[in-house]
């Protein structure tokens, strides 16, 4: 089956500082592919390049059959990106925000309604959606942002630390939502520091450090290969 995303020899530098030194990976349809690594490893840079925010330095990125570098506008139609430190427009009411975002993707008012209804269901915020985003807690804001990212059922959802800053219950809820949408056909590329989260969510994992992918595979494969009990030990072992 054709890969949703294929990354080959991806390089990126900021001035003299090399952020990505040539990485390769692919995301298959209906899978969760996770990038794990320490701060400054190149996870966010990779996600931002695939989300069309940054331009790749070298290498190729193929999204479905499209060259991401040549057709960024087309790619944006089918992906959604949830940055780690994302915010929503504080002066907008939750419902207005969802309509505003849905309007960029929907071709008809009916489709817009479908997107918004789906987002409302994800957030479970009920009447709070009639109040301004500025009054929401961090968990509520993160949920509305996740709902925004998933409401169109994108081909590829790029989630950077999706549960960042959330309490245990909210984080659990977010993970369940992500899994549900993966079952419905959305592929997910995510990054996280939380190894438990990665084990729960991911089908395959890539270990990244200093702009290079050290190893990749399913959590089970990696644990077996590195004779480790969990992904944290796998990560420590690959760094050695």
């Amino acid at each position, binding site marked *: 089956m054709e890969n949703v995303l294929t990354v080959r020899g991806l390089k990126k530098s900021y001035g003299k*500082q090399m952020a990505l030194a040539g990485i390769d990976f692919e995301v298959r349809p209906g899978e969760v592919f996770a990038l794990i690594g320490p*701060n400054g490893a190149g996870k966010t840079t990779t996600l931002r390049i695939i989300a*069309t*925010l940054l331009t790749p330095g070298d290498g190729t990125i193929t999204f479905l059959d499209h060259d991401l570098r040549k057709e960024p506008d087309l790619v944006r139609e089918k992906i959604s990106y949830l940055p780690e430190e994302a915010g929503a*427009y504080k002066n*907008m009411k939750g419902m207005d925000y969802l309509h505003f975002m849905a309007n960029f*993707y929907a071709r008809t008012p009916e489709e817009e309604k479908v997107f918004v209804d789906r987002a409302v269901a994800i957030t479970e915020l009920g009447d709070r959606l009639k109040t301004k985003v500025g009054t929401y807690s961090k968990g509520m804001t993160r949920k509305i942002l996740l709902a925004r990212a998933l409401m169109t059922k994108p081909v590829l959802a790029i989630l950077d630390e999706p549960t960042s800053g959330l309490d245990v219950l909210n984080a659990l809820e977010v993970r369940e939502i992500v899994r549900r949408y993966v079952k419905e056909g959305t592929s997910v590329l995510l990054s996280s520091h939380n190894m438990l989260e990665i084990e729960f969510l991911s089908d395959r994992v890539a270990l990244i450090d200093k702009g290079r992918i050290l190893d990749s595979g399913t959590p089970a494969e990696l644990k077996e290969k590195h004779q480790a009990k969990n992904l944290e030990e796998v990560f420590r072992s690959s760094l050695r």
Partner: protein
Amino acid sequence: MKRFLNLLKKEIKELVTIQLVVSLGFTILLFNFIGQMSRKEVQKAIGVQTISALDLDASASSQAILTGLESARFKIERIEGKTKEQAIDIVRGGESKVLLVIPPGFGDSLKDLKPSPIETYSYMRSFSLIGARGSAIVRGVITALNNVLSDSFLKEKLPGLDPANLKNPIKSKDFVIVHDRMAEASASEIAGMVSSQSMFIPIVLMMIVMYSSQMVISAVAMEKQNKTLETLLTVPIRRTSIITAKMLAAGLVGLISAGVYMFGFQGFMGGIGGERLQAATSQSGAVMRQLGLYFDTTGYLILGAALFLAILVALALAMILGVLAEDFRSAQNMIMPLIFMVMIPYFLSLFADINTVALPVKIFILAIPFSHPFLVSQNLYLGNYGMIFGGLAYMLVVFIVLVVFAARVFSSDKILTMKLRFGKKRGATA
């Protein structure tokens, strides 16, 4: 188009806040209030004024002066049987702003052609210009009386001669020539009229540039500060549409805000000047028309185009500055260079003539795109169409260059990585 309109609607909604509406409403009310207050003061100053008078002479001549003042719509409060010092004290406690003291022997001294001075005491109860107007009017009346008295003396002593020719043997008539047109007026009067006619141009420009630029810079900086920019840049809308929507929204709201501000300002000026100003304007208007110093439809269109282009340049520049700003606070500082770029030609247009300044200064002024709208009105009057269209073309080129640059910045990594951080090292995203 649907996506663009979606974004434009959001941008306008973000800009038109209750705070903006309240602040604009308050501005209109404030200007109208000050205008009305000033109008009342002006009316008081030009209305019937009370003057206290101590006539220590009680001659026919002193009576004639006081009667003359009464006929000039002054209300005279005569103080009888008091000394000068007592009169000064009495008036100090009253409402009268001026005390006239006609000295004893005034009438006789006039007959001897050695007139004693009339003493005028002005009570300054405020330091406003309008407050000091009373004594100026009294002086005007005294001057008129001087003329009448001296004319009658001259007629008596030198019958058959026109006193006016004796007093002013050399007469002058001032004419002003603009191109092939000529009118009777002084050059300083015409210069004053031209500058007062085009006074609104820098004010309008300043207001719109400040409002709109502030809005654009803040709009981009707020997207950064609230962490919404990254999401916006990944939705399916062209980067040029994002720039255009932000600029258009800020331009529209800026124009409306400036219009509202000008409406308030007009109320303020109307309040101060009132009917007298209108009458003066209609008189001077005739002279200005005679000299061709007025805007026809083409003139207004050119002036409008110059203002419009200047606004576009300001918006494009503000967009780039907004990208450089890290957050809302630094965005407030970013507006300063733009304001200076408008202030420099504004003040230079007030105090210097662009055509006579040194060449390097001239090049510097003309290089600032905002100089051209200031120069358009003068150049229109003088028929310097080369300068006008050169200026318009220059502003258009600057606008295109800035927009292309802004679009490139928005389409590149720079939108996320380009920052101006004073005194700090630039960090890279990982």
